[in-house]
């Protein structure tokens, strides 16, 4: 009974088939001193065949058999089937596949409908107890236990499979989560409802400098929130604790955060809530926006400088007055550029100091108190003086801590100036002056902004220089113009004198050139010519017949029709006139006008028989004016035919001898505009 009790307890204590079989075998061997035991489950029915193939399910005590567990063995059918018994069967046992000892004796213990236990030994057991019967009662229990354990194994296998699948899935999920979080450049943290950090990713470690072990369990607001914001964050979180809601939940905001080393930096914080085990947690994703912030500030500063520069150029383009230019620039820097103040200083007349000439955003008292001495060895010179001498911009990024330029520091700080830049106004290697710009905040001038401000200073210097040179030029130009006018007046006087001389030799044509000139100028005006061109026409007309100076007076003054030879002489006057004036430098083609005024469109004119476009416009105008005036005027050899006859003449030869537009203009003058000779 005691043995049964012992084995029954072992059997009852197992929930899985394999341990059940092994431990049962161990207890059976323990109780019997048999050295080895085998278990076969799922025996084929006894149908009389001598051997059966059956799987070995458990083996204890024989290494050869232990190696065969789970494999099919060819076994004598009679050894497996039959009642419980201890028997000697060396012929069967020694032939067993896997046996590593010469077994002779077996103890067979059938397991009800489940299989069989075989204990095997080289000897008969040293006991007289009926071992075959001792264990039989527990074999029924073993059969039931095997069934239960099998069910449990299947169930457990299902659970294991499910668990493995779940574990694998979880592992994959965790791996993904780990990978994502390890790879994330943003700090990710999970905060429980007691403000404690319960998750802290590697990026958070890098960002804040706190290790995993330092951060986990720590109060988040104490750890990474600057002291001045602490109360506000704690207050906000107290509301979140109960409701999962808060003013910043679900939002992305920019805040200042605290590193382990005490330094602060700007972060973009996205925060959301989730519930874990009935408690609200906050997930925070924080991104270091230091660089972005700096870029934004830089962009802002650059934009400000660019705006200023653009405005500066606009002012420069329109500038006519240097003082006004300087004042406009200073106001632009302050009003448009958003800088605190600006002033421009030039060296005083005695070169002893820089003298502010224009300013904005700063009071006169400040300017008056500035120490801007230019004397050599001035010990308290400021950045403006340094810039003036060095021709290089001088930046004071933090006036408060500037030990190099102590001279004007106190007054600047008192007025809220935090940083400054002095820009030399240099043109052609000479410093014209200095432009000083102040900002409200320290470190306001970065490299990009410096570049733009430097460009602005260069433009301003150029503008100043341009204004100055324009003034000089204007003065020079005025003198030149006056001289030219004087010369022109002298020239006209000379021409008029010559024309008068010519007229005096031909009293019949006296006033002819003047009248031709009047009509020609009127036609040119009607044609919309420029003043300059009209002036050329007028001058040309006035000395149109200057060539007649070589025509003998008796020919010019002889009444009656000229002989052919005389007329030939007359026809030379354009060429002669041309020769007279060709070397005079007129701004107009006066010589060509004189030469061509008797040419006709169809080539019938003289002296060169030019046609159409070969004849300059001024000559075409004068041709019409000359003919109309000549026909309308009295001549020694005939009376006046009147204006209409003159007009009829040019109308009749409109397009053949005379330019159509010129003829039309002339006709309009007389018939429509009321033109008449004085």
């Amino acid at each position, binding site marked *: 009974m*005691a*043995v049964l*009790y*012992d084995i029954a*307890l072992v059997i009852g204590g197992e929930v899985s088939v394999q341990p059940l079989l*092994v431990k049962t075998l*161990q207890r059976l*061997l*323990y*109780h*019997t*001193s*048999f*050295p*080895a035991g085998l278990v076969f489950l799922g025996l084929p029915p006894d149908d009389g065949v001598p051997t059966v193939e059956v799987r070995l399910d458990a083996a*204890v*005590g*024989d*290494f050869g*058999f*232990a190696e065969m567990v789970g494999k099919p063995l060819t076994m004598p059918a009679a050894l497996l089937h039959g009642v419980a018994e201890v028997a000697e069967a060396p012929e069967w046992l020694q032939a067993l596949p896997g046996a*590593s*000892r010469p077994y002779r004796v077996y103890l067979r213990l059938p397991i009800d409908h489940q299989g069989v236990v075989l204990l095997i*030994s*080289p*000897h008969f*057991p*040293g*006991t*007289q*107890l009926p*071992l075959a019967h*001792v*264990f039989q009662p527990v074999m029924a229990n073993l059969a039931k236990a095997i069934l239960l354990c099998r069910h449990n194994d299947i169930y457990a296998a299902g659970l294991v499979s499910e668990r493995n699948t779940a574990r694998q899935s979880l592992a994959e999920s965790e791996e993904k989560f780990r990978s994502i979080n390890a790879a994330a450049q943003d700090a990710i943290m999970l905060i429980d409802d007691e403000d404690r950090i319960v998750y802290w990713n590697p990026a958070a470690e890098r960002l804040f400098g706190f290790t995993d072990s330092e951060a986990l369990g720590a109060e988040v607001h104490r750890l990474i929130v600057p002291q001045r914001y602490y109360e506000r964050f704690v207050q906000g979180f107290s509301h979140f604790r109960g409701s999962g809601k808060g003013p910043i939940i679900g939002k992305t905001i920019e805040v200042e955060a605290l590193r382990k080393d005490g330094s602060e930096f700007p972060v973009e914080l996205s925060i959301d809530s989730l519930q874990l085990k009935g408690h609200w947690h906050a997930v925070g994703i924080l991104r270091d926006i230091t660089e972005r912030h700096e870029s934004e500030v830089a962009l802002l500063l650059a934009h400000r400088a660019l705006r200023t520069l653009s405005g500066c150029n606009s002012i420069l383009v329109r500038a006519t007055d240097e003082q006004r230019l300087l004042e406009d620039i200073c106001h632009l820097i302050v009003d448009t550029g958003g800088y605190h103040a600006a002033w421009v200083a030039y060296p005083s007349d005695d070169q002893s100091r820089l003298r502010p000439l224009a300013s904005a955003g700063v009071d006169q008292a400040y300017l008056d108190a500035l120490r801007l001495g230019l004397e050599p060895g001035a010990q308290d010179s400021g950045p403006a003086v340094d810039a003036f001498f060095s021709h290089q911009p001088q930046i004071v990024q933090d006036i408060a801590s500037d030990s190099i330029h102590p001279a004007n520091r106190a007054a600047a700080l008192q007025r809220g100036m935090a940083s400054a830049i002095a820009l030399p106004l240099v043109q052609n290697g000479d410093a014209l002056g200095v432009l000083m710009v102040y900002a409200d905040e320290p470190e306001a001038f970065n490299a990009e902004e410096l570049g733009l401000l430097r460009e602005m200073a260069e433009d301003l210097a150029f503008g100043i220089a341009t204004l100055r040179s324009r003034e000089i030029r204007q003065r020079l130009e005025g003198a030149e113009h006056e001289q030219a006018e004087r010369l022109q007046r002298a020239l006209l006087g000379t021409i008029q004198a010559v024309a008068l001389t010519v007229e005096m030799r031909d009293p019949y044509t006296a006033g002819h050139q003047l009248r031709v000139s009047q009509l020609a100028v009127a036609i040119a005006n009607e044609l919309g010519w420029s003043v300059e061109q009209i002036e050329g026409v007028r001058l040309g007309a006035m000395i149109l017949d200057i060539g007649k100076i070589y025509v003998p007076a008796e020919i010019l003054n002889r009444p009656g029709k000229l002989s052919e030879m005389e007329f030939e002489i007359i026809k030379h006057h354009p060429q002669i006139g041309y020769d007279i004036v060709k070397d005079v430098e007129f701004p107009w083609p006066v010589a060509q006008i004189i030469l061509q005024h008797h040419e006709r469109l169809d080539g019938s004119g003289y002296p060169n028989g030019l046609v159409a476009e070969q004849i300059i416009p001024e000559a075409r105008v004068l041709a019409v004016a000359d003919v109309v005036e000549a026909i309308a005027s009295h001549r020694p050899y005939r009376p006046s035919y009147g204006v209409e006859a003159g007009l009829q003449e040019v109308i009749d030869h409109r397009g053949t001898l005379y330019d159509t537009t010129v003829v039309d203009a002339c006709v309009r003058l007389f018939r429509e505009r009321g033109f008449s000779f004085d």
Partner: protein
Amino acid sequence: MSVMEYLPEITAQSLDEVLAGWQKEYPEMGVLVLLPEAEKEAVDILQQVCNSRGTKLVGAIFPALIECEAFLSHGVWLLRFDQMPYTRLLPDLPQEEEALQGTLDSLLQGITPHLESDGDITLFMLFDSMVPHIGTILDGLYLRLANRVHYMGVNAGSETFQPMPCLFDGERTVGNGVLLMLLEEHRGAILEHGYEVPEQMITATSTEGNRILQIDWRSAFEVYQEMAREQYGIEVTRENFYETAVHFPFGIVRANGIILVRIPVALEEDGSLFCVGEVPPNAVLALLRAPSVDSVHTLDTVAEGLIELNGSLDGREVLLFYCAGRRLHLGIEAATGELLGLQQRTSAGRIAGALSLGECGSTTEWGYPLFHNATLVASLWGE
């Protein structure tokens, strides 16, 4: 030249002389040292001498030594390995199931490469008697090694059952562990106790390793007292427990009628009893009336078993471990008588050994290895 050398006095010189003599003939030799508890300080000298000679050393400390028919509390046994076998000294054996299985797997990995030869191999185990779960360890080893080795083992330590580092090699002296040796061409040991089984059985309803907490759902000591009183008319008290209990050990009953003896050696305040050797939970126990030890049967079994295994023992050298509890129970005279009886039955040339605090092995060849008390464990040495 004998493979066993007893030195009544342990000096560096005497040790060195023996080792030098052996080393001349067996340059690859090693030595197993059996040291009585009274000479435990000599471990240092042994390690120094062996190290200086380059001799591999393993050993254990026992309550006393056996030299032919005598129990000796002084001197040292030097047992030669002609060629040092595979040994492993493992301290602080884990008790937790998973860790223990890991340790056993690790042991197996060390042992397996040395099991290639066709000859018999004996796994000789010297445990610290304070290890509480030797039976479980044996089960685990047998499950892994099965019949590839013979199993032979004894417990070392102090007879007072006070913790004492009792296992050593050339560098360390450790406790709560095991010293394993693979003895090649060795056919194992014979183990026998001859304790008879009484009628009345009890159940150890609650145990922890070698500690019986409850018997039949009552305080273990109360039941023990009651059974001793009812069966043998003996009054066991806290005061006389140690002297008395050795005569009335527990027996774990097995189906083949052969019992495992468990000698209670300590009594706790809560009434639980410490035994030499593990008592499985719910083990069926008997209170053995130890005086009915069948010495003749025991000696016959051991001698005949040895002869059956190894042939005639005439003039050959035998290793013998004798349970300290058995000696305590039988008394020094009877115990010495058993030694003499064994010498006579075996005609052994020399018997070397020690008093042990528990024994491992099987009562039959290739039998299931178990942990016993009160037995004699004998084997040949050095052949």
